[in-house]
């Protein structure tokens, strides 16, 4: 097979990444020893801890790749990769800042005005300013072009927004929402036209944040309702009408990180503590081989980002394969252990299984369902 849009150059080795990895490891060991957090599954969704996020900011582990002038540290994507995977493997509470650091900050760097960048990016890098993604709506799941939240200009040149966004992770603990809105009437001939992104301060009058509890009762998601919310005109992000293009690029950006295959890593670690008979060791080997392959894929994408590429199709592939793996881990472990899953289990493995299972439906839905992702991969294969 010749090269195609799915293949990427092998990830470069990075001594700097290994150096920062060692630092993070030491930090995490100390924090765990001090009891500042306990390991859980899927903490990049559910582990909100602003104090912990600020500690990471202090150490220079947020906004790592951004220019220094915006509070960043001008380090490579490979170094950032090492930091994020260490945090995920430890099951550390990183949810507060996760979206801002991964996605909203880079988005502001690409499309933000100088004022927006100067105001917000240093606060993100300090671990003090948190973002949510304002894309999905109650009637628009995978079909983002059908969103209905509207923004119209008023006489002062400000935007008046009405509508509602859902699945906004941790909006109740966040400061801003980059919100996809319709700024021109829907055009049946071009479903992707007329959309724009607004940078919305969640403390503005007219915004209501209603909790959406997930099936285990956890409060991570919210509905954000906009009732005649007035957004200053200069809070447009990027170009008016370019919202579709911007979110597509943003989604590609968010799909390839280690959080797409390490959400259930704490379960694997717990299983490893138990693995002893040949069948368990073989299961650990199989799980590990899949994880190692995903890690190489994800590292390749980090390498491509360092080269200035935007590998959207491999990123979709990583998310599809990786999130499938996250759920498969549960099944693989269950095949070789006799520990019932329960949050109240006296056995840490039983608790990890329970956490992983209760969060499982999210893995292959968030950030684009796996069916959508496979469609993107198929397009990359030249089939559509």
């Amino acid at each position, binding site marked *: 097979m010749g090269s195609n849009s799915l293949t990427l150059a092998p990830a470069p080795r990075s001594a700097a990444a290994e150096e920062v990895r060692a630092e993070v490891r030491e930090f995490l060991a100390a924090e765990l020893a001090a009891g500042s957090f306990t390991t859980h599954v899927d903490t990049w969704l559910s582990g909100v801890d602003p104090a912990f996020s600020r500690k990471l900011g202090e150490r220079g582990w947020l906004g790592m790749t951004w220019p220094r002038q915006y509070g960043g540290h001008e380090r490579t994507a490979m170094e950032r990769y090492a930091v994020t995977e260490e945090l995920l493997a430890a099951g550390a509470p990183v949810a507060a800042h996760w979206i801002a650091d991964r996605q909203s900050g880079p988005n502001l760097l690409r499309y933000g005005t100088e004022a927006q960048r100067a105001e917000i990016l240093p606060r993100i890098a300090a671990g003090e300013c948190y973002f949510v993604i304002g894309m999905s709506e109650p009637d628009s799941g995978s079909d983002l072009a059908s969103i209905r939240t509207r923004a119209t200009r008023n006489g002062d040149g400000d935007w008046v927004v009405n509508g509602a966004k859902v699945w906004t992770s941790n909006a109740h603990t966040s400061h801003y929402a980059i919100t996809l809105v319709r700024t021109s009437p829907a055009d049946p001939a071009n479903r992707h036209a007329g959309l724009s992104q607004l940078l919305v301060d969640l403390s503005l009058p007219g915004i209501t944040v209603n909790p959406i509890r997930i099936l285990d*009762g956890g409060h991570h998601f919210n509905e954000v309702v906009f009732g005649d919310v007035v957004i200053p005109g200069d809070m447009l992000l990027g170009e008016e009408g370019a919202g579709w293009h911007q979110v597509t690029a943003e989604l590609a950006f968010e799909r390839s990180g280690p959080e797409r295959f390490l959400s259930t890593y704490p379960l694997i670690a717990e299983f490893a503590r138990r693995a002893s008979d040949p069948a368990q060791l073989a299961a650990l080997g199989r799980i590990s081989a899949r994880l190692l392959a995903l890690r190489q894929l994800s590292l390749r994408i980090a390498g491509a980002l360092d080269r200035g590429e935007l590998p959207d199709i491999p990123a979709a592939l990583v998310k599809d394969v990786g999130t499938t793996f996250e759920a498969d881990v549960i099944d693989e472990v269950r095949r070789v252990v006799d520990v019932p899953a329960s949050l*109240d289990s006296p056995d840490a493995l039983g608790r990890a299984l329970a956490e992983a299972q209760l969060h499982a439906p999210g893995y292959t*839905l968030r950030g684009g369902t796996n069916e959508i992702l496979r469609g993107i991969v198929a397009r990359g294969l030249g089939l559509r």
Partner: protein
Amino acid sequence: MSDVDLVVETVRDILTGYEPFVLTAERPWDAGLWSALAEAGLTGVGVPEEAGGSGGELADAVAIVGALAAGAAAVPVAEQLLVAAPAVLAAGLDLPAPEEPLSIAVDGAVTAEPRDDGDGPGSWTLTGTATDVAWAGVARHLAVLASSPVGPVLALVDVAGRDTTHAANLAGEPRGSLVLQGVTSAGALLTDAQAERLRARYALARAVQLSAALQQVLAWTVQYAGERQQFGRPLGRFQAIQMELAEMAGEVTAVAALVDAAVQAVERDESPVLAAAAAKVRAGAAVEVVARLAHQVHGAIGFTQEHRLHHLTRRCWSWRDEAGTETAWARVLGAGLLADGPDALWPALTRVV
């Protein structure tokens, strides 16, 4: 309409008044629903009238359990009708009144010391901790499988006033422990085979619940796919979704066929062990596929506490682990099928159900 259909209709009528809710330590079961079922005589179905029950066959009890499972009903009916009551009766013990919830405890370590000659029903002293007790803190009576120097013992414990530790399964159903320190209770010696059958009946009860719940999950998912629009058409029009729903249907239909057959094997009074093992393994394996795809098709909305889907998927995730995991029962089944020797698999397979 058969008797079974009539019974199911009665249960469904009652269920319309009792929507499933999120179980908590404060509200760990649906006491109102239980009362309604008890008033209608449904908590004594399958128990002969002379034993204080409502009469009826095993098939009726199974149908009730299935309808309640599909309705995510938080009541200990599966344990009472399919496991504990038949076991208590078979052991020659006095069955409590059917309106007093009776559950079953087979895990943990409880020892029984005979207080009399220990032959047949008698009095025993129980010591130890029963763990993973379904409806601990809710059930009034508990049929406890204990071990004694002379063999397994089924003891009937009145747990009113006894402390249980709070623990719950993934759906919030109580699964706490009960500490017994020198408790005197009625009990009867079982053979090892009888004890094994009791465990098998428990596993089969969970398989019956799983089968009904999985059928309901499929029905909800098909309905949702027919209604939910994406990209201008119902989800169910997308071939990718059709493939997923067909896969779910394959799992659900296979489970139903095997679970029904296992129940019939019990009705024929055959040893339930391998049939129950097969049913439990097959039903548990289906959860992996069916719950995953159901959530996948439902999308984010099905992942919320407001949506009904989790009432069943959370139960399914736990029921497959309870009364023996799939892996444990798979070993029992594999070993049992080879009992007549390594060349005798096929004859064994054609005998299981």
